[in-house]
């Protein structure tokens, strides 16, 4: 939100995110793979999108099944609605099996849903149910809004903490780093969940002083972008 730009200090020494310095990446649909993926330890790969409508549908977003050898793979599902039909769960689990059968080292499923800051408890209930359906050993991760750390309902955050293995907090929206991200990050100590910070390739980043000493901080994930993207 641009309101932030006026009211929040943007760190003067922030520097653009150079993907070469990181080892975990999101690869979204429409974004072309880059050589830096060869150094990845984790790749968060968009599989599909659960689209609202009647009926709710899971639409594949990759034109083919990946065959990634080496890095750990998180199968990412973008989710518009939490009203999943039994068929959606079947499709998702079948897809998980197929990715595994293709030789990908799938460590978990990441759900990318914009849970409102106030409704985290509802989201936690959905995730708790999903967790029970996943095969043993398959982790469950989510993306999170920066706002959660500042304003998330403490009970909702606690509920999430018991269910998900990690949350990746994005410090950007669209093609821009959220100008006031540093102000959100200062409250990260409120977040009772192991977390990563999601950075934007080429976007600004200055780690806040307390980040590296936060016991729940697990590192970064860089969202790759096409170099020629407007």
């Amino acid at each position, binding site marked *: *939100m*641009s*309101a*932030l*730009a*006026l009211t*929040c200090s943007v760190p003067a020494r922030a520097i653009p995110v150079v993907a070469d310095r990181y080892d975990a990446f999101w690869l979204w*649909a*429409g974004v*072309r*793979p880059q050589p830096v*993926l060869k150094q990845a330890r984790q790749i968060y*790969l*968009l599989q599909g999108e659960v689209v*609202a*409508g*009647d009926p709710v*549908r*899971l*639409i*594949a*977003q*990759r*034109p*083919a*099944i*990946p*065959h*990634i050898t080496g890095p750990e793979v998180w199968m990412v599902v*973008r989710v518009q609605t939490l009203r999943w039909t039994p068929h959606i769960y079947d499709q998702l689990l079948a897809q998980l099996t*197929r990715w595994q*059968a*293709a*030789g990908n080292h799938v460590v978990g499923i990441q759900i*990318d849903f*914009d849970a*409102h*800051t*106030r409704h985290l408890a509802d989201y936690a209930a959905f995730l708790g149910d999903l967790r029970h359906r996943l095969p043993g050993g398959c982790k469950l991760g989510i993306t999170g809004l*920066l*706002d959660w750390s*500042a*304003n998330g*309902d403490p009970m909702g955050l606690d509920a999430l903490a018991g269910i998900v293995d990690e949350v990746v907090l*994005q410090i*950007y*929206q*669209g*093609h*821009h780093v959220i100008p*006031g991200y540093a*102000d*959100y*990050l*200062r409250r990260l*100590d409120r977040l009772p969940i192991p977390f990563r910070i999601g950075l934007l390739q080429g976007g600004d980043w200055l780690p*806040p002083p*307390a980040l590296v000493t936060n016991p729940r901080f697990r590192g970064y994930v860089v*969202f790759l972008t096409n170099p020629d993207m*407007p």
Partner: protein
Amino acid sequence: MSRLCALILMSLACLAWHTPAKASGDFGCTPSWKLAHGNLTGCDNMAMLSPGNDTRINLLLLIADTPGNTSALADPKRPAPDALFEWSTLANRLSPLPDKTPSNDSSYADGEGSRCLSNMSGTADFEAALTAASKLPDNERAILVGTRRGLKPDCAHDGKADPSAAKAVAQMKSATGRAFAGYLLGAAAFYSGDYDSAAGQFAALRNSNQAWLKETARYMLARVEVNRLQLGAFDEYGALSPTAKSDQKISAGAEAALQDYLKVYPHGRYFVSARGLLRRVYWLSGDRQKLAAAYAALLAQSPASRGLADDALAQEIDSKLLPKMTADDTTNPTLLAVLDLVAMRMPDGVADKDCCGEPLTLANLEMQRHAFASSPALFDYLLAVQAFYVTRQPRDVLRLIPDHAAQGSFAYLDYSRQMLRGMALEAMADRNARGFWLQMIPGARRPFQRPAIELALGLHDERTHALDKIFTSQSVVQTPAIREILLTNVADARLLRQQANDTSSPAHERAVALFTLLYKDATRGPYADFGRDVALVPAGASSDPAYGLLGDNDPPLGIFTQTKTLGDYGCPALKDSEARLARNPRDGKAILCLADFMRANGFDDFSLDTQPPKDQLGGTPSLFPGSAYSRLEAYRGIIADPKAAASDKAYALYRAINCYAPSKVNACGGPGVAVAQRKAWFQKLKAAYPQSNWAQTLEYYW
């Protein structure tokens, strides 16, 4: 500041991520409440064709204007949507599915074109065909059913064909049974990736006397070729490989096989699927012109006849065609217009300055004029967009788009034209701008049209110091978010009090007005007013933490009357502290009690202490006197006051130092102080008030 985010997040359902090629990225949605959006953000889509819109939105708006398309009719039973929205909001609203049970398995043009996706539906179809085959002995039918059900393709690897199909063949005595078993042999080979064998089996069935086998074999022959084309086409990440060169011979074969099926079976059971596969062949082989022509043909059809919902079509065009399409690839006005709008994206503000390439020039746009011979209104609109966004000549917009604000109902193109004309009038400070917007209101009947005009009126009245017009009983501005943004950011005490008391206003708006009034009464100076206004808080009002104001739930007015969460300084109810401040604004205990109330109730950086940027709704200076509240400033006042009581000074020092705990960033608002000042405060607390609890409990400064 962070609260403001929460507040706006809740007023528009916010999206984070989505996937189109031209709009790739993820979005935590916080819309910019203004009319001109030069660049894509994902959150600021409007119902007018615009450079800042997601390409899929521009496509969908143009599709909705297709003659006979009924999807864009407003449904009075549904609540009015907001002026600014995300892709999924529009897609769900404007794009009903062609039918309610789409087969997820039969769509190959988008998503994965894997040979295995049809396995489940293929089994059911096969069994239905067996049931319909009259000359098939029951025992053979049972064997065939069992064999088909047993076929479990290994989709990830190419392996050996399932031997059970060959066994079934051996058990067939009847000609019909042998034909169906032959199909199973082909299917087993297909699913195991043995395309030569599969093609041989299916070719042998092309003239079968079983209608289902005859048609299906011809379709499967084409699918074999498509799957052959896909070999090696993708990289390890499942993306189209940039280095793979598609084999012209194989792609020509796949195209011919699909065309053959489509020609023989123009109403066939696989028609929609085969046509989707044909587009996939064009995409795989990089034939942009044929791909564009295929989409141009689909754009003219209804969702039912193309077998593809409007939003799915827009999505597919966006991901498969637009990323590489150039203006030379098509003469279709819709596709060109969408491409041109992208080419006219411009930076929205300083932070955005590197966003966009060289914008489309007038000369280059003029070169497309012939392609728009059948759509002059669309072409003139593109010229006007070029004038407005690229060369910034609003006068040219007025010349290109005549005034036609009064219409019975607007198609989306008509609407876009008149909206842009209105924006040009505003840019030129034309004195009839307000009248123009009002003229547009009655015709704005389709989804998402009216709220954007209300936004225009809100911006206009705010900037012409006529906020009261928005809140008269005859006001046409009814969108809750627009009204509430103006109340929370700009309104003075009189207007807030008026809306808080107005029983004809929506309950949520009344509560927002009262919450804003009480908050600003309490923190900006008119303390005596707080005592009167707080009487308006209804009994039993919630006092839950205020996570946001503009969301669905009513704001928790009970926070101002509750006596449980008042802080750690032995403070009375807020209204008592306010009464003390009304008598003496320098009353140290009351200042600290107000600060502790704010701290304990989570009001640091609250949205009511920030404002949107100047060019957005709510961005003009607040008419409520006084300035944004800062706890740190309150503590500094006590620390600097020579007459302040020792106990108050000690607490003020303790709290001021804690503003920086533990992150070393000021959490209490205001400009802040250097670390040397925090150190000095810490030393003063320890030296001057060593006996105070606060000095004894504080071990560090930050």
